[in-house]
């Protein structure tokens, strides 16, 4: 654990207790079983807003507390532990980061206060295929008069069904594969021409497929610079990758604790199974992955706060290392629980399913290995 300020410690403790008490995995399970259209509980979200979490990254002038990414990561980690469903990550981290990094004053004034008070849910609509490939963006925005007309498809949009606004990456010039020619647009979810379809993902969260048919937006909808949206998009994505890595660290750490607990209580062959060296050594290896992942995630969160120049490297590093830990851990969670691990009644399956969705979000390990190599110049 990083050395925290008094305020950070307070928030971390508050988040830990609140998530365990008010938004535990059992309430996520209940929501899933209710087959409700809702992907998160409104009371969960309004409690988060009341605690100030939705504005943790936002400057005070817009009603936020500007406490930084490390603090935000501490909360996301605790939510990851309990699989707490909420738009906190999508809107208050990704959406808010995009507006803070690329938005002009009018755009910030229009949206940041609503992100903070929870009335706006602003999410990124980027991926178009089954892969995270920002540069392959094909969705087009044609200039028409002083506005734009957007056509194309987006998929795997987090909080896509509940969002009030999409931040859409669309091509204003060049062709799929070019980093140049991509622009970002703020598009209200209710805009005419948008069709959204819920994706029934394994983790029972809110993901949507979007189809844009001649969706008209004004010139003022452009977020950041026209045609040259990629650099700032990468910055937003880096913050997203680091934030999601914090959530993944929590999910995997909880799986580790559940497994360790089982190793100490389940008896077979007249002994607790944790006394079998084959299992003890795996636990040791997983512990090592956990500690190394934590080092990477914390370093990455701190680097964003410090505006360090190696944020991109650390983002890929954190996503990759914690990805490896979560992958191994979610599999061992099932395996070490034996037959119990296979039952839906036990939580292991919920963690495994969420793990794979998190892995695919904002670039999987293969993507980030490749990117890391690029960043290191080979």
């Amino acid at each position, binding site marked *: *654990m990083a*050395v925290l300020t008094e305020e950070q410690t307070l928030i971390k403790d508050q988040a830990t207790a609140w998530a365990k008490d008010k938004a535990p995995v059992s309430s996520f399970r209940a929501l899933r079983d209710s087959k409700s259209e809702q992907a998160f509980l409104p009371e969960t979200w309004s409690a988060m807003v009341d605690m100030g979490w939705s504005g943790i990254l936002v400057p005070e002038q817009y009603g936020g507390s500007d406490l930084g990414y490390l603090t935000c990561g501490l909360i996301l980690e605790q939510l990851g532990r309990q699989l707490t469903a909420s738009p906190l990550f999508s809107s208050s981290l990704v959406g808010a980061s995009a507006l803070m990094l690329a938005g002009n004053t009018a755009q910030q004034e229009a949206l940041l206060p609503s992100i903070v008070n929870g009335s706006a849910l602003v999410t990124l609509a980027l991926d178009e295929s089954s892969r995270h490939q920002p540069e392959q963006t094909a969705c087009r925005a044609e200039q028409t008069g002083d506005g734009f007309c957007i056509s194309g498809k987006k998929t795997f949009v987090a909080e896509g069904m509940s969002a009030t606004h999409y931040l859409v990456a669309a091509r204003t010039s060049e062709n799929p594969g070019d980093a140049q020619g991509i622009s970002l647009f703020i598009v209200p979810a209710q805009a005419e021409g948008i069709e959204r379809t819920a994706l029934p993902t394994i983790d029972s969260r809110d993901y949507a497929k979007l189809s844009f048919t001649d969706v008209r937006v004004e010139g003022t909808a452009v977020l950041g610079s026209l045609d040259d949206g990629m650099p700032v998009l990468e910055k937003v994505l880096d913050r997203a990758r680091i934030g999601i890595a914090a959530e993944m660290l929590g999910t995997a750490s909880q799986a580790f604790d559940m497994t360790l607990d089982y190793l100490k209580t389940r008896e077979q062959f007249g002994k607790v199974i944790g006394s079998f060296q084959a299992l*003890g050594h795996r636990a040791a290896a997983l512990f090592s992955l956990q500690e190394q992942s934590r080092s*990477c995630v*914390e370093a990455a969160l701190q680097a964003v706060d410090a505006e360090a120049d190696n944020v991109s490297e650390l983002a890929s590093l954190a996503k990759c290392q914690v990805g490896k830990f979560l992958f191994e851990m979610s599999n061992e969670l099932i395996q070490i629980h034996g037959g119990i691990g296979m039952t839906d009644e036990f939580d292991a399956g919920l963690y495994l399913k969420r793990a794979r969705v998190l892995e695919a979000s904002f670039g999987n390990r293969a993507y980030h290995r490749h990117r*890391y*190599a690029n960043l290191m110049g*080979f």
Partner: protein
Amino acid sequence: MTEDFKISVGDWVADNLPKGLVGAHISMYGVVSGDQEVKDAFELWRQRLAAQGWGAPTWPREYGGAGLTDAQAKVVSRAITKAGSTNPIPYLAGMGVTMVGPTLLEYGTPEQKARHLPGMASGEVRWCLGLSEPNAGSDLASLNTSAELDEETWVLNGQKTWTSGADKSQWCGALVRTDRSAAKRNGISFLMLEMDQPGIETRPISLIAGESPFCETFFTNAQARKDDLLGQMNDGWSVIKRLLQHERQSQTNAPAPSTTAEPLQDVAKRYLGTSADGTLTDSDMRSRLADHLMDTAAHELTIARIMTDARGGNVEVSATASILKNSATDVAQGRSELLLEIMGSQGLGWEPGEYSGEETHTVREWLGGKAMSIYGGSYEVQKNIISKNILGLPETTQKG
């Protein structure tokens, strides 16, 4: 720590590092590669460092150190590395500066400290450690070499093995049984004795890397002074536990003694070639290389996190630190395997000539590096320690 300190250290190194020493190599066992001129330069460098107390910079001045803080000592070692050189003293002192010395500082009497520490700190007295025996490896507490007190003298009998540098050392720290009736760990003591005596015979053992850095060591009525018992009689187990902690620490902190300061990816580019866009043509190697570099970064960030946390008084530090011996091993051995593979058939040479010095050195280092997962608590023993002491899982093996 002041910026002035950094500057004055940097200046001192610039003024005192003998010319012709930059880039010269000293092996883990204190052997200088090069001609007489290089050897003389290293000796001059040793004398100058010793006079500064920089052989063991954190030790008190009265024992040959410089009384520096850990942070200051790091400044010194960084300045030396930055100047392209090595501090030869820790290597020349064998197990002295890194292991026996720090333990002596904690457990030794003032007389013992005054007698033994200055020789280590100056690099003039080399120490070896006689712990392992043919039947006591990971299970060190089952050791059999005995010592009995005969008035003013301990008399030792038995055999040690894998004693690094035994044939080149002047002194030995030996773990011996002093009470056969007590439980395994309770009848052990730690003695210090001179190697140059009729009761000791050493036989070098050749290793797969081609060196003979260690020996079988035979004690036949070998003698140690009564007052060279370190710590209490029959309490050698606490002494050795502390000493092994120092060993682990020195292993995880020490930069790998590598000739190629060149980043791994640059070596790969040289051997494997790049496409027009600068990426490695061998995409499989590229991917594994990225993986390795990320594992390395994760290990280094963990060390950094532990250091910051320790300064902040965080108690979870020791749990995290327990992973470092194995992660350091993974990184070092992984790096060697990749280097060898990158060099292809050029990475398979035993003698220089048809192969460059860099290539044969890589081969030797790869072979020598296999020991990292064996000594200092093997890879498996480290996992036992983590699962039992850190995670609280029940004992997986018999007491050992």
